[in-house]
């Protein structure tokens, strides 16, 4: 107590107060969305300097991937952005397919698009829930988690996992959709647009919500590009850059959708962009579901895709089965993966997720570089927080939509 009183006394007498006032926010702070530590330099309650310190969740995914084969590396991608892991899987798979020159069947592409948009809705629901909770709206949190549960149950039916899917394979997907899943998804797409107004009526013109989000962390379009912001954070500033439109992958060139943008580039606009994106995602899922019957009976894995040998649990130990054509082994005589490099990017729910892979012809990638949106967004926090109050920092971290597993890799 004595120290606090001393600081208080010093602050009252401003002339004798010369030292900068430092405060540590995190890594155990509940609204830093993980283990983000912010070293804040304060002037009263105003932030004058901010130094984000990350790395508490660093697992060395890039180093680990160099020592695993391509299909095993996809398993690691789940652990990056664990809220929308299906989207990460697709980014990895796209880069590897480009490297190997595989042509993914249309049915697999449609299924991937559905899964990717489901992940986007999941992510935005969780983002809205936690963002609203940080600012103080508890009911939204409960509503969002109710609906997210619905999607996670469908994910469970698709691949057996709720959070870390590993559903996408190099060259396609692991399992085909059954009729039950399609029916469930149809039911979801019909009901979900009616649920979005539920959240909006709670906060859209709520006085506290507007006070906390309007004119907070305003970024101009040029500044946003310079800072490397992507995804809804960039579109909130009015730049209609969306990888799904600019460099279409999977089945995005077949479907119609609008890229919502904001005007002012503040926290409220980014919130509006994400709400609109959920509606568009829902619409994309519906279009893909309508197209699925056309591809009935098509294979879901590309020809010559590297197989993942899974040890089967047998009662009697049997010798390992003879590997099929296309299996990648360490030190195989004939390299299936050509020497070269490939770059693929997707519009993950949080922003642009790009993978750059260099191959030396063996079964393992020589170098796997992952550019994650959260890493870039955290690096923008010092610029965005300058001049704001410490209470706004919580809203700024929320609006950037960061996950520390994504940034630390």
């Amino acid at each position: 107590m004595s120290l606090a009183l001393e600081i208080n006394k010093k602050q009252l007498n401003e002339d004798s107060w010369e030292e900068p006032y430092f405060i540590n926010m995190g890594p155990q702070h509940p609204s830093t969305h993980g283990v983000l530590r912010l070293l804040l330099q304060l002037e009263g309650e105003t932030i004058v300097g901010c130094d984000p310190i990350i790395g508490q969740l660093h697992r060395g995914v890039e180093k680990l991937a160099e020592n695993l084969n391509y299909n095993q590396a996809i398993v690691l991608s789940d652990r990056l952005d664990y809220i929308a892991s299906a989207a990460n899987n697709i980014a990895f798979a796209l880069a590897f397919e480009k490297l190997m020159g595989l042509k993914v069947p249309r049915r697999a592409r449609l299924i991937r698009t559905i899964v990717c948009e489901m992940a986007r809705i999941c992510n935005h629901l969780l983002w809205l829930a936690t963002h609203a909770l940080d600012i103080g709206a508890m009911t939204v949190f409960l509503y969002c988690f109710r609906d997210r549960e619905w999607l996670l149950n469908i994910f469970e039916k698709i691949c057996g996992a709720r959070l870390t899917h590993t559903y996408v394979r190099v060259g396609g997907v692991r399992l085909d959709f059954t009729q039950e899943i399609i029916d469930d998804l149809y039911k979801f797409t019909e009901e979900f647009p009616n649920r979005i107004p539920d959240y909006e009526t709670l906060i859209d013109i709520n006085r506290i919500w507007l006070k906390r989000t309007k004119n907070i962390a305003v970024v101009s379009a040029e500044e946003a590009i310079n800072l490397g912001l992507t995804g809804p954070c960039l579109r909130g500033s009015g730049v209609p850059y969306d990888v799904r439109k600019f460099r279409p992958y999977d089945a995005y060139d077949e479907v119609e959708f609008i890229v919502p943008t904001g005007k002012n580039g503040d926290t409220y606009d980014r919130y509006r962009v994400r709400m609109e994106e959920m509606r568009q995602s829902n619409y994309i899922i519906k279009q893909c579901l309508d197209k699925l019957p056309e591809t009935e009976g098509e294979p879901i894995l590309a020809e010559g895709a590297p197989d993942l040998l899974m040890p089967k649990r047998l009662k009697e130990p049997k010798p390992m089965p003879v590997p099929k054509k296309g299996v990648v082994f360490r030190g195989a005589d004939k390299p299936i993966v050509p020497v070269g490099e490939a770059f693929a990017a997707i519009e993950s729910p949080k922003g642009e997720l790009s993978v750059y892979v260099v191959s030396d012809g063996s079964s393992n990638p020589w170098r796997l570089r992952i550019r994650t949106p959260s890493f870039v967004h955290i690096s923008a926090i010092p610029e965005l927080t300058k001049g704001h109050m410490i209470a706004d920092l919580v809203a700024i971290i929320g609006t950037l939509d960061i996950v520390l597993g994504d940034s630390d890799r």
Partner: protein
Amino acid sequence: MSGWINKLKDQFSSVVLEVQLDKDYPTVICNREGFLDLIKHLKEEKGFTYLIDLCGVDYLNYKHKKFEERFEVVYHLYNLDTKELIRLKVRIKEDDCWHYSVTPLWKTANWFEREVYDMFGIKFEGHPDLRRVLMPEDWEGYPLRKDYPLYLDEEQEWAVYKGLVEKTKMERGK
């Protein structure tokens, strides 16, 4: 697109070493000296305003290597108006391990360069705040280099952690 890239070779003859158009995206291999002029020209004249990615690659003992240098720093630039993507590469020698920083041009390069320094030990000249970003500040070695082992021996472990373990053992012994 290939037209103006070939012109680039004439305009920056001392910087551009090679232009590869057969890759998935046009790749320009550059000299370190004068690189800043080239990338400034691309950003301000050609409209490549968005730096997607900046990363390092270690080519130690790479079987199909056609050049001497050990490291490569790879840039992916994007033009939001013409939807063009271009890849720039700069090769760095091991005993001359530094490169020019592009942080004055892009704020987003700040942390990318810190990460390359953290993982490969390539220093960036002109960077305002070159520190480790993902690894602890007192970490020894550069983890993504090819000669850095996947599993460390007991002697090589992080000094701070090792000290902590030894201290705890001592105290328990008492």
